[in-house]
């Protein structure tokens, strides 16, 4: 398991998807805001949270192909399946490595970003907590959709139809206040579903 995670991190570090890129992406999205909506502080504070959520969902959607697909295409997935004792371990290490690579950067630069958008500490903490719990859930969802689409080809539309509605509750509750309990529940629910469906998808993949 550690090996698999290390490997994914190594891969992310040296191929395009590294920390810098991801965090720059978020900063850049946020940089567009003042140009569009003007520089009034209240306005920007209001938008900040919403845009973070949109940014997070997009960056997960944008990169979900990388969870299993790239490894599938070049045959590394065969080795991963062979060399690990259980499918659950594979799935869980993918959660971890994908989260570290594509979500963690957001949380590291979040304090900086909230400075730029004039938020105070307690607000930042609430946003942080919501985003954190939400990002877990969204990674779980992305992983199982990615595993499912490995097995069943020509499901691009299916993929779109599954992903987006599942992200909606996270975005709605995430941008509300005091909703971390709901997000926690949602994430736990999606964890259970995801671990089950992802391993199912991986098991089917061999047959395809």
């Amino acid at each position, binding site marked *: 398991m550690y090996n698999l995670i290390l490997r994914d991190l190594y891969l992310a570090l040296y191929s395009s998807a590294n920390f810098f890129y991801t965090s720059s992406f978020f900063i850049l999205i946020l940089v567009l*805001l003042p140009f569009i909506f003007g520089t009034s502080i209240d306005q920007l504070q209001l938008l900040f949270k919403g845009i973070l959520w949109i940014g997070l969902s997009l960056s997960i959607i944008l990169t979900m192909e990388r969870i299993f697909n790239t490894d599938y295409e070049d045959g590394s997935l065969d080795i991963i399946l062979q060399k690990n004792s259980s499918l659950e371990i594979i799935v869980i290490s993918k959660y971890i490595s994908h989260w570290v690579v594509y979500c963690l950067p957001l949380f590291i630069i979040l304090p900086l970003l909230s*400075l730029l958008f004039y938020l105070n500490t307690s607000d930042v903490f609430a946003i942080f907590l919501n985003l954190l719990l939400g990002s877990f859930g969204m990674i779980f969802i992305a992983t199982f959709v990615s595993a499912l689409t490995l097995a069943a080809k020509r499901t691009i539309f299916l993929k779109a139809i599954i992903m987006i509605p599942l992200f909606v509750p996270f975005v709605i509750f995430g941008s509300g206040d005091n909703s971390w309990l709901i997000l926690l529940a949602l994430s736990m629910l999606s964890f259970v579903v995801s671990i089950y469906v992802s391993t199912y998808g991986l098991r089917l993949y061999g047959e395809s």
Partner: protein
Amino acid sequence: MYFRVTKNHINAIKAANPYLILSTVTAFVIGLYYALIQSPPDYIQGDSMRIMYIHVPSAWFALMCYTILAGSSVLWFITRNPTFNLVARSIAQIGMMFTVLSLVTGSIWGKPTWGVWWVWDARLTSMLLLFFLYLAYIFLWQAIANKDIASKISAALAIIGFINIPIIKFSVDWWNTLHQPPSISKLSAPSIDVSMMLPLSIMTLASLLFLITVFFIRFRIEVLDNKILRVGDEI
């Protein structure tokens, strides 16, 4: 025939290196002495304005480095002299460093003067974009395996990105923003007190020396990495 870097040039650069480092350090010591101890605090801003002595030179050189970067990329396209390409590549990192420095010092300065670390005005934001342009230039070169093509492509990017420079430079005049309009670099009478002018000049000189030192170190590495010396000139 165009100018070629030779073994002699490289050796000269290598020989000059210790002197450059020494003079950079000296200039910084003198400059910081004047900036921090000798010069009077500003009567409105107090001691916080001392950060200007780092902020202003690094902002200037951030812009200057990009100008050199874009300029040598253009020259490289015209003359195909690989030396220009190496100049461009050596200057990019330094430029990025100055950009970061001016962003950081600027926002440290912004806290006491504007009350916030950051404002979304045109100059500041375009400076942030400049940082991303440097970043993109450096990453793009690394991301392409065939270095021949990588140089061409990143040179093209550098030239396109040059649009940003006039935007940064004139943003303060064009848009009504919080940021200080030019008071020093106005060509006619500088509207700034001599007691500040002196440390600022020394710090500018020190930063320039620093730029040159780092540039030569990077340039030497780039030359050695890229084997553009003629046969027989290898080191």
